[in-house]
């Protein structure tokens, strides 16, 4: 259990939950980031600005931490660009097909006790784990 960081994990997690709770309480929206992004592609009028602001907030919020405090980790470099792109394609495709990602299904859906989100979350954690197992243990990546 190297690198286990329970305190920052708990603090960060609480903030994530707070952001989700806020969006629900004030805007009536699920803070499912894949959904927020996908919804910002051609949309009925009036529906895009809040999405852009939320996403801007995501970048700026992370930036506020990253730009003002010493980075707690060494950013990964030299990772295969082909794998990065393949991963991105799969995540983009899969989250749209599956109607959500870790924030939508994991943070929001499970809080609402949605059966769809439970199945989705168990599924993506499972295939994520299997993928890492294959890459790390089988391929030796």
């Amino acid at each position: 259990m190297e690198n286990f960081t329970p305190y920052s994990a708990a603090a960060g997690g609480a903030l994530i939950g707070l952001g989700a709770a806020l969006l629900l309480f004030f805007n009536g929206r699920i803070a499912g980031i894949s959904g927020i992004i996908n919804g910002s592609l051609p949309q009925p009028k009036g529906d895009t600005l809040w999405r852009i602001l939320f996403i801007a907030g995501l970048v700026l919020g992370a930036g506020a931490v990253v730009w003002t405090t010493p980075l707690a980790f060494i950013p990964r470099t030299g990772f295969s660009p082909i794998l990065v792109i393949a991963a991105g394609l799969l995540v983009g495709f899969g989250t749209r097909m599956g109607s959500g990602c870790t924030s939508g299904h994991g943070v929001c859906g499970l809080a609402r006790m949605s059966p769809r989100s439970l199945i989705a979350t168990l599924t993506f954690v499972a295939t994520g784990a299997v993928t890492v197992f294959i890459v790390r243990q089988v391929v030796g990546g």
Partner: protein
Amino acid sequence: MGLYLASLLAGLLMGSGLAIAQMINPEKVIAFLDFAGNWDPSLAVVLCAALAVSFIGYRLTIGRDQPLLANAFHIPDRRDIDMPLVAGAAIFGIGWGLGGYCPGPAIGALSLGLWEPLMFVAAMLVGSFLYGLLTRQR
């Protein structure tokens, strides 16, 4: 106006949370999924903490007629499990395990000014677009 500020604030909170929790570090995410290897349970703690707060927020919100600043709730009401849900989640999980990024953290990671998150986000948008194409042609 308040609606837009709330959206921005929600994003700021989530973004800062993701960074503090180091979820913008793909290696930390992969270390959580690496159950057979050097396992780092941090992501589980992140999710539990996020769920706890999100749950409280949800309980405080349902039962209200309206959100505080908007006219209506936009909460999905489907409860059925169908193939796109499962297949989509499975595919997403593969990409997540491969790259160590999911949508939120990838966007937050853009703040690092590195190529990797940028490439990932671009590919993610393409992937989403491809799915949109697929379903439109039915």
